[in-house]
């Protein structure tokens, strides 16, 4: 499966909502065992929140090696690499390091009370 990211979300990849839209578009195919190609040609501005939703949440159900093998990001502008890398590193740690997850969840709960 191949998805043109620019056609789906535009040239600005910033918000969690846009990332979720991309994730929803490929997730069934990925879960079915397909290799997914995300084509970032024409995109230009990136924030890690976008990648948290678009890619990071895959790590909840799939190992990093499988994600590396079957989720391919092509034509990725250099400005996207740092936020994407950070998002994947954080997600892997969150889903596979119980102490780290517990600490983050503690912050989340406190903020939910304050909100």
């Amino acid at each position, binding site marked *: 499966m191949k998805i043109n990211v620019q056609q789906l979300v535009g040239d600005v990849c910033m918000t969690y909502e846009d990332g979720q839209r991309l994730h929803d578009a490929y997730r069934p195919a990925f879960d079915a065992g397909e290799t997914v190609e995300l084509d970032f040609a024409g995109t230009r501005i990136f924030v890690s929140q976008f990648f948290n939703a678009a*890619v990071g949440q895959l790590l909840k159900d799939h190992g990093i090696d499988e*994600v590396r093998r079957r989720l391919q*990001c092509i034509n990725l502008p*250099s400005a996207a*690499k740092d936020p994407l890398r*950070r998002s994947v*590193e954080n997600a892997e740690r969150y889903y596979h390091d119980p102490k780290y997850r517990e*600490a*983050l969840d503690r912050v989340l709960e406190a903020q939910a009370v304050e909100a």
Partner: protein
Amino acid sequence: MAFLGGLARLVEYRGGKVSFNWDIQDSAVTMNLAQNGFKAAFRAGGHPWAGNSIPYREDTRQDAHDFQRYLSELWLGRGWVKVSARLRDAIVGHMAEIYLNAFEHGQSPIGVFTCGQHFPRKRELSLTIVDFGVGIPSNVRLFKASEFAPEDLPAAKCMEWAFQRGTSTKPGIGRGIGLDLLREFVRQNQGRLEMFSHEGYVRVADGQVSFGERPTFFEGTLVNVSLRCDESYYCLASELSDKPPF
């Protein structure tokens, strides 16, 4: 201006009243407040104009795409700092991340305040983003609660921890402050990056990163970026690694 505007809104949010005595100000200051839209925001009349101001704005709700246009066109897009389109987009991404983080989980009840200024004689371009949320030290202390008592994590230490790559102060899937590229650009440009939260601060200037504490407490986070408007042309090159992102 961003801080002053936010402070006024915070007082109003908490039930207080704020009024500015516009008459006693220096005329140059008054003109600047009219130019950047601060006076109009507080219903003191005037129609903002471009000039050397980056307009004062209040975002009570998140509008990431409009904020991105503001940064791209009204801050970095006016030719005061000569950056390539790709580098401009990368810096805008960093600043947009700061903006979006302030809205996560409703931490800043009155939103985010932004303003900037071009100083032709000083050859400097500045931008300030401020929120009135819980602040970085609060998040770090909660995150590290199983290891450290709050009194063992002074604000400066919290800022230092949050500034390290790969650390996260935010919930959800998490993030680090992740300003690597912006820090590198500020260093090359010989500009300044400052972040204040509670009593703590971090300052990137003259190629050095320093952490410290100030006597005043501010519950929220203020980020200030000052760039030097020199004749150099800046573009993305080796500051981004070529290795695969994951």
